[in-house]
C-alpha cells in the first residue's frame, strides 16, 4: 500500500504529460504534415529534416539546448516572465515543450505519409463537387488519413512516456510536478529500491508491448479494409 503511494504520483504525472502533449502534438503536427505532404516548395525537405533531428540526436543534446532555451537567458525565460517566473525549466509546461519537440518526428512522419497516400484524385473529386479546399481537407483528406493520425498519436504518446533524457535534464525531479516514471525508475535503481524499480519497470514493459502490438493489429486491419 505504501509502495503504491510512492509509485502512483509519477505514473499519474506521466499519463497527464503524455496526454496533454499528444493532443498539442496532433494540433501542431497535422497542418505541418499536410504542408510537407502537399507543398511543392524546394526547401520543404529542409523543414522536414529539422523536424526529424530529434530522431538522430541524443536526448542529451536536446536537453542541453532546452535547459538554456527555457532558462532566464532564453525565450523560455521571457515567456515565464509573463506570470512573474524566471524560467520554464523545472515546470510541467517546460516538460510539455521538451516532450513535444522530441516526439514531433514520431508524430509528423506517419501523418505525412498518410496525407501523401491520399493523393490528388480524391481532392480533385471533392473540388469538382464544389467542396472548398477547407471542406475537402476536413471531409475527405482527414478521414482518409485517419489511420496515420492514429499511428502518430500512439507513437507520440509512447515516445513521451518513454522520454528520459530531456526530462532528466530539465525536470529537476520535483515530486508531483516533474518526477515522471522514467526518472523515478532511474532514482529507484540508484538508491537500490529494487522493489519499486521492478514494479514501474515491469509496468513500462507491459505498456510498450501493448502499444506495439495494438499498432500492428490496427495497421493490419486498415490494410485489409483497403484491400
Amino acid at each position, binding site marked *: 500500500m505504501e509502495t503504491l503511494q510512492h509509485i502512483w504520483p509519477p505514473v499519474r504525472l506521466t499519463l497527464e504529460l503524455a496526454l496533454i502533449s499528444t493532443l498539442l502534438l496532433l494540433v501542431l503536427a497535422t497542418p505541418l504534415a499536410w504542408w510537407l505532404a502537399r507543398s511543392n516548395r524546394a526547401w520543404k525537405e529542409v523543414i522536414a529534416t529539422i523536424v526529424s533531428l530529434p530522431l538522430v540526436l541524443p536526448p542529451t543534446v536536446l536537453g542541453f539546448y532546452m*535547459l*538554456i532555451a*527555457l*532558462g*532566464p*537567458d532564453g525565450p523560455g525565460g521571457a515567456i515565464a516572465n509573463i506570470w512573474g*517566473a*524566471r*524560467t520554464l*525549466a*523545472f515546470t510541467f509546461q517546460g516538460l510539455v515543450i521538451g516532450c513535444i519537440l522530441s516526439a514531433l518526428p514520431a508524430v509528423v512522419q506517419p501523418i505525412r505519409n498518410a496525407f501523401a497516400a491520399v493523393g490528388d484524385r480524391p481532392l480533385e473529386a471533392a473540388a469538382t463537387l464544389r467542396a472548398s479546399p477547407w471542406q475537402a481537407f476536413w471531409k475527405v483528406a482527414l478521414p482518409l488519413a485517419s489511420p496515420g493520425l492514429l499511428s502518430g498519436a500512439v507513437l507520440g504518446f509512447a515516445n513521451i512516456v518513454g522520454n528520459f533524457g530531456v526530462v*532528466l*535534464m530539465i525536470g*529537476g*525531479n*520535483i515530486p508531483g510536478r516533474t518526477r515522471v516514471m522514467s526518472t523515478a525508475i*532511474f*532514482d529507484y*535503481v*540508484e*538508491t*537500490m529500491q529494487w522493489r519499486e524499480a521492478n514494479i514501474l519497470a515491469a509496468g513500462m514493459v507491459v505498456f510498450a508491448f501493448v502499444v506495439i502490438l495494438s499498432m500492428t493489429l490496427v495497421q493490419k486491419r486498415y490494410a485489409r479494409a483497403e484491400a
Partner: protein
Amino acid sequence: MRSIVITFGLLSLLFAGPAEAAKTNVAVAANFTEPARAIAARFREKTGHEAVLIFGASGAFFTQITHDAPFDVFLSADDERPRLAVEQGFAVPDSRFTYAIGKLVLWSRVLDVTDGKAALSAGKFSKLAIANPKSAPYGAAAVETMKALSMFDALRSKLVQGNSISQAFQFVDTRNAELGFVALAQLHGVAAGTQWLVPENLHTPIRQDAVLLKRGANDEASKAFLTFLKGPEARAIIESFGYAVE
C-alpha cells in the same frame, strides 16, 4: 620475404603494446572530476601507468559495481558505499580509506549569498538546486544543513534536484535556479557569482572514501594508483581543489 617481415612487424605491433604501462579503470564521483584529472595526469608522469577515469554518480556506480562493472578502483562521494562494497564482497577489505573530505557551499549567480543564512531566510528566490539527497552525499548534506538551520520546511517547495552534484551545478550555472548547494571543488576556477561556505557543524562530514575493487585486487596499476592517491603529492592537489584531507 620483405612482405612477410612487414606482416609480422605489423602483427607484433597489434599484440604487443607498451611493455610496462598498464591501465586501471577508476570510477570517480562527479564532484571529484577536476582533481581526479589532475591526479591522473601526475600519476601517469610518475609511474607511466594510465588511470582511465569514468565520471558519474556514486549511487549509480555502486549499482554497476554490484553487477560486475569493469572498474578496478572506486572513488566514492561518501563512505557508505565503499563500506557496503567491502561488506558485500566486491572490494578488498583493508583497502578502504578517506581520500578527501568535501566542503559544501551555497552558490548563486543571481543573488548575493555571502551571508548564506540571511539569503536563505529572506527567501527571495523561486528555485534552490541541490543534488538528489537519496543518492548523492552532497544532496544529503544540503538537506541536513537546511534542517540544522530550521529552514527545511520553508524551503522544501523551492527545491529542485539534480541527479548528481554536477547537475545541481548546471542548474545554478545556467541560472535556471537562482542558487544552489554545490561542492566547493566545483567552484575551483569559477569567478562568477557569490558563495557561502557552509559551516562544518551544520552537517555530518562528507567523507569521501576510496576502495580497491575485487577486479583490480591483483592489478599493479590499480594498487599503484591508490598508493599515489594516499601520497603527499596527490593530497596537495586534493587540498588545492577545496577539500580537506586527513
